[in-house]
């Protein structure tokens, strides 16, 4: 029988053998991150497990954080790698991606936000053509300034700051 000390040493969620650990997400953003990744988690045929972990304290970073543990094969790893840039929208430079194979970390990186985002955000300007016409995919140019990332609608030139970006994830 485990002692209290042994329980204290144990992780809240066990390690994964293969997949991706998305670490360092800002607290409260795990579900936004899942939304941004657009993982196909309603398909029972996909052999993947998704574990959102919210509001855990990191001794290493000395702050609260969210995490995602995504267990699956190599196709999951490459899919997350492709989509990972979007995660910088909500956690900027703090997010770390760890790709895991046979219990070992094979790749570690900080995702960089793409210069353009197509179909990822809604425009906060309700008079924008992307909100009024059917089947118009939104397109935003991303730039960085002193206040963090900013998205500019390519159609109506509406600017969205970090808070608006979070509110308008499609």
């Amino acid at each position, binding site marked *: 029988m485990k002692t209290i000390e042994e329980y204290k040493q144990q992780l809240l969620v066990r390690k994964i053998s293969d997949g991706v650990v998305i670490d360092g997400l800002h607290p409260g953003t795990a579900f936004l991150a899942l939304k941004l990744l657009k993982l196909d988690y309603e398909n029972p045929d996909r052999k993947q497990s998704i574990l959102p972990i919210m509001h855990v304290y990191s001794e290493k970073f000395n702050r609260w954080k969210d995490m995602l543990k995504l267990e699956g094969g190599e196709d999951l790893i490459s899919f997350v790698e492709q989509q990972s840039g979007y995660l910088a929208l909500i956690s900027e430079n703090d997010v770390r991606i760890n790709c895991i194979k046979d219990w070992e970390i094979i790749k570690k990186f900080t995702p960089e936000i793409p210069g353009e985002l197509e179909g990822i955000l809604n425009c906060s300007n309700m008079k924008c053509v992307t909100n009024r016409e059917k089947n118009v995919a939104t397109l935003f140019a991303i730039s960085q300034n002193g206040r963090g990332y900013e998205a500019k609608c390519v159609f*109506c030139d509406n600017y969205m700051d970090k808070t608006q970006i979070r509110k308008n994830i499609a």
Partner: protein
Amino acid sequence: MCWVQIETKREFPKNVIRFQDYSAEQLLKLFDLAETIRNNRESYAHVLDGKVMESLFYEASTRTRLSSESAMLRLGGRVTGFSGTEGTSVKKGESLEDTIRMASSYGDVIVLRHMDDGSAEWASRCSKVPLINGGDGENQHPTQGMLDLYTVWRELGDISGKSAVLAGDLKYGRTTHSLVVGLGMFGARAVLVSPENFEMPEKYIRMTLEQNPSFDFVKAGSLEDAVKETDVLYMTRIQRERLPDESEYNKIKSRYEFREEHAEMMKDRAIIMHPLPKVDEIAYRVNKDHRAKYYDQAENGVFMRMAMLCKIFGVEK
């Protein structure tokens, strides 16, 4: 010190969507061409023979539509299209994309006025032929901005270093959104005078500062203080429909009505402009003032749009 962007940014844009797609040098060349056409109408009368303009106006327009169509006809081209969506498939729910795809196979150039912000950019991506933005929602009206600057350049000989008061509805008045970018581009000073809740949206100030980081602009509270030193007064209509009731409209109207006593305060060489239609914001008697240039401004629109069409079709003479 005045700042003018002199380098050529790029080729003359195929589509006329937003003011900031142009450099000051490109605009000056356009104004020169408009002058050449004005003085040599006969030699430009057939340069667009065989070309067709699709004039698609989803919203009401008098000057933009008529002067665009007149410009095409004066260059030898022809015009088809609609004014208002009554009697078109738009009423049946046809998308903007489908209308534009269809129209771009009928015509060689499209002029579009549409009620949605950003509709011109979207339409240009759906079109096979060049597209001119005749006003997209509350966003921009680039050809109006160009003819406004053309008028300033023509009347005052220069734009750089001049001071312009933009007064009235600067929030919904899309002509001022394009004009402010143009003023900044040429190193002119802008004084913004508007009622509460009708201020210039921040994004257009930002766009102007992106073009010219030392853009000189101030916000002023009253028309009286602003008009004394200005070279250009640009009045716009307060849109009655944007206000909750008639009494609110009357209150604002009286504060932003330009009257003869205001004209008396202005410099003799200054000019008074208005994109039209005007309702109550300029007193009738001001029409006779030698500085009132709004009818010339409307006339200039035809030559500026003729020059624009020549540039789009690569007509060089």
